[in-house]
C-alpha cells in the first residue's frame, strides 16, 4: 500500500514556516550565528541555529497567552504541528480519530528550561508552573490534549535519530493497518543543558559548521520543530501530496556511546535495510540528505558508509550547514527538505565547505541546482547510543 505525505509544517533557524525554509534553502542562506535568546555563557562564544523569534512572540501568535506551563519546545511543536495539519487539510474529526496516530520525538523536551529545572529538582522553588513540563513526552501530551487526539500517541528518544524513528514508526503503523494516518515528527529547543553536554564532549564549533570539510571542527546546536502528515492511500486518494515514504532502516552501530565505528557498521546497515525495505537498488537514489553534523568523526564515517553502500555515491549534502544540528527534530526537518527537493527538482548545496574530505566527496552538492531529475531520496540520521536510521522518499 502506498503511504503519501499529504502535509507538513516546520519552524527552524531558516524560517518560521515551510515556505520560508524553502526560500532560504534556494537562496543558500544559513540561519547560524550567536545566540540571542539562550541564557548561557556560551551564547556569544559558539554559533547556534536559533529560531529567529522569541518564545513570547510565538506564544502570542498561537494565542496561547493564557496557557500555563508551556516551554519553548512545546510552543515550537504546536506551531509546526498546526501548519502540518492545515497543510494536509485534516478535519478536526480526522485529527481526533482513533485511526490517527501521533508520534513525536525530542531529546531535551522541557529541559530547555534548564535553570527552572535545576530549581524544581533541588527543591529551591515551591514548584514552578513547569513542574509537569520537563519530560520528553510533555509536548506530545500537550498537543494530544489540545486537539483531543484519541488515537495512538508516542514519543521517541533515540538521540539525534529520534524523529527519523518517529517517521519510520508512523509508516509501519499504517502499513500494518494499526493506523490510517500518522502525524510524525519532532521538536527541540536549544538548552543550556545540551549546550554544556555537547561542549563537554568538545564537539561544538566556534564558527559556522562545515559539514564534510577537511577542517570541520564540530557542530552548531540548533532548534526546530517539524511534522509530516502520512496518510494511507485509501484515505487520501483525492488529495494533493508531496510524495511517498517507501522505506526505512534502523540499526545500531554497537561501538561507542558517542562516536561511530571506523568501518561505519551501523551507518551502512541502516542504509542497506532502508533500500531493502523500499525494494529499490542503491543506484536508484538521486540524492542523499546526509546526517553531516560536521564533527570530525561523524562526517568521515558517514562518507565511508556511502562508499560501502553505493558503487557510485549519489549527490549528497548536509542541510545542517543551514540549520545547525536540531537533534530530535532534525530527522523530520530534513525529511521536509527532501520533499522540497523531490517536488521542485532542486538540490540544496552544502554551505561553508571549501575543502571537502579528499577521496570521499566527489558527489557533494556545491551549488544550488535546478531541474534535476528526482525520483528517490534518502535521508540519514545517527545518534548517541549508536542509533542509526535511514529513510527513503519517492515521487508520488
Amino acid at each position, binding site marked *: 500500500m502506498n503511504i503519501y505525505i499529504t502535509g507538513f509544517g516546520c519552524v527552524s533557524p531558516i524560517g518560521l514556516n515551510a515556505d520560508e525554509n524553502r526560500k532560504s534553502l534556494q537562496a543558500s542562506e544559513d540561519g547560524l550565528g550567536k545566540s540571542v535568546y539562550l541564557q548561557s555563557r556560551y551564547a556569544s562564544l559558539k554559533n547556534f541555529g536559533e529560531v529567529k523569534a522569541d518564545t513570547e512572540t510565538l506564544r502570542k501568535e498561537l494565542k496561547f497567552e493564557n496557557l500555563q506551563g508551556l516551554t519553548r519546545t512545546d510552543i515550537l511543536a504546536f506551531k509546526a504541528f498546526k501548519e502540518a495539519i492545515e497543510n494536509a487539510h485534516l478535519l478536526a474529526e480526522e485529527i481526533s480519530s482513533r485511526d490517527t496516530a501521533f508520534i513525536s520525538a525530542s531529546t531535551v523536551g522541557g529541559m530547555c528550561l534548564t535553570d527552572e529545572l535545576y530549581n524544581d529538582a533541588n*527543591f529551591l522553588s515551591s514548584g514552578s508552573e513547569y513542574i509537569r513540563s520537563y519530560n520528553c513526552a510533555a509536548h506530545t501530551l500537550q498537543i494530544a490534549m489540545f486537539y483531543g487526539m484519541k488515537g495512538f500517541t508516542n514519543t521517541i528518544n533515540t538521540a539525534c535519530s529520534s524523529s527519523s524513528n518517529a517517521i519510520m514508526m508512523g509508516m509501519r503503523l499504517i502499513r*500494518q493497518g494499526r493506523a490510517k494516518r500518522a502525524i510524525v515528527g519532532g521538536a527541540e529547543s536549544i538548552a543550556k543543558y545540551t549546550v*554544556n553536554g555537547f561542549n563537554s564532549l568538545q564537539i561544538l564549533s566556534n564558527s559556522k559548521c562545515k559539514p564534510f570539510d577537511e577542517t570541520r571542527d564540530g557542530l552548531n546546536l540548533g532548534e526546530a520543530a517539524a511534522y509530516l502528515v502520512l496518510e494511507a492511500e485509501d484515505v487520501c486518494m483525492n488529495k494533493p501530496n508531496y510524495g511517498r515514504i517507501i522505506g526505512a532502516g534502523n540499526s*545500531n552501530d554497537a561501538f561507542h*556511546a558517542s562516536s561511530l565505528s571506523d568501518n561505519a557498521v551501523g551507518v551502512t546497515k541502516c542504509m542497506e535495510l532502508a533500500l531493502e525495505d523500499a525494494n529499490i537498488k542503491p543506484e536508484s537514489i538521486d540524492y542523499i540528505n546526509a546526517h553531516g553534523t560536521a564533527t570530525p568523526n561523524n562526517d568521515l564515517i558517514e562518507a565511508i558508509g556511502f562508499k560501502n553502500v553505493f558503487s557510485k555515491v549519489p549527490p549528497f549534502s548536509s542541510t545542517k550547514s543551514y540549520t545547525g544540528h536540531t537533534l530530535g527534530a532534525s530527522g523530520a526537518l530534513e525529511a521536509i527538505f527532501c520533499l522540497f527537493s523531490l517536488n521542485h527538482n532542486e538540490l540544496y548545496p552544502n554551505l561553508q565547505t571549501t575543502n571537502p574530505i579528499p577521496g570521499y566527496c566527489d558527489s557533494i552538492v556545491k551549488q544550488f541546482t535546478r531541474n534535476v531529475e528526482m525520483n528517490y531520496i534518502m535521508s540519514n540520521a545517527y545518534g548517541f*547510543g549508536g542509533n542509526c536510521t535511514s529513510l527513503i522518499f519517492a515521487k508520488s
Partner: protein
Amino acid sequence: MYITSLKAISPQSTYDESFFSGNITVHSGNKYKALEPNYTGLINPNLLRRMGKSIRMGIGAGFQLIQGEENIDGIILGSSEGGLEDCIKFLNQIVTYNEGTLTPTNFVQSTPNALAGNLALMSQNTCYNITHVHKGQAFENSLLDAFLLFGEGKAKTILLGNVEEISDYNFNIETSAGQFKVEETTSENLLSSSTKGTVCGEGSTMFILKANATEYFAKILDVDQISYPTENEIQSLIRKFLEKNNLTPNDIDALVLGYNGDSRTDFWYTNVANTIFPQQAIYSYKNYVGEYPTAIAFGTYLAAYLLSGKSISILPLKHSSKPIKRILVYNHSNGIQHGVILMSA
C-alpha cells in the same frame, strides 16, 4: 507473541524469584527502592563503577537474557525518564561550575536511549534498536513496536523491557506536583490508605519475546492505549479491544490492575472492574514495587508468572475460583495515559 524468558530487578526479591514463593519485602515511606543483585561476574567492575543506576539495573536484567539467546533481532525499550540521577548530576555540575569544564560521562548516560545503546554494545548487536519515552505509555508503545516488527517478519526474537529509577530529580519534582503521600504508609496498607498521592518505585523488567515458541511463560495477544479518555471511552476501548481479539469479558479470568493507593485516581480501576469484569480475580502490584511511569512492565511480569502454571504465593485483591488462562493488564498514569495488555496461557 510469546514470552520465553523474563527477568526483573525491582523493590522485591524478583531477581532470584523468591518473591513468588512468599519472600515479600515490606516497604515504608514514599520510596520503594530496588533490591539490586550483586552484579559481579555480570558487569565489568570498571564499567560498573561509572554506570548510573538505571543503566546498571537494565543491564542486570537484560544482558543475561540476551546471553541466553543465539540471535536477538531487536532491542526495544520503554523508559519515561532514563538516567535521571546522571541528569541531575550533570545539571548540578552546570550550576556548580558555572558552565565551566564539565565531564561528559553524566551527560552521555543521562540520555534515555543510553541503556538500549549499552545493551547493543555489550552484545555487539547491530539490529533494530529503539527507546520509547512516552511517559506512562512507554512500555505499551514498546510492545506495539514489537508487534509491528514481528508482523513485518523482520524479527524472530526481541529483547523488550523498561527501566525507571528513583532520583532526587523525579522524586523532588513529583513531590512538588503532589504525586506522593503526605502521611507515612507501608506497602501493606498503601492500597487501603484512602488518601491522596502514591509512592515512588523503580526497577527494570526485561522479556525475551518470540514470534513462535513451543515452550513459553505466557503469550501477549495484543496491546492498546488511549490518552485523556472519559470513563465511557476507556470502557468502550476495552470492550472493542476484546471484540477485536474475538473475546468477551467472560473469557478473561483475571485482571492485573495498577492500583497505587491514590484516592484521586484509583476509581478508574474499580469502575472498569465493577462494570465490565464483576466476577474476575483481581491482582495488584504497585503495593509491592511502587508507582513509576512504566510500572505496567512489572504488571506484565506478574501476569506472565500467573499464566505460567508455576505455583506462586502472591495473593489477589479479589479471589475467583476460575483457573487463570487469560489476563487483562490495565494501567493508567495519573488518569491521563491508559494502557491495556491482553495475555494468555
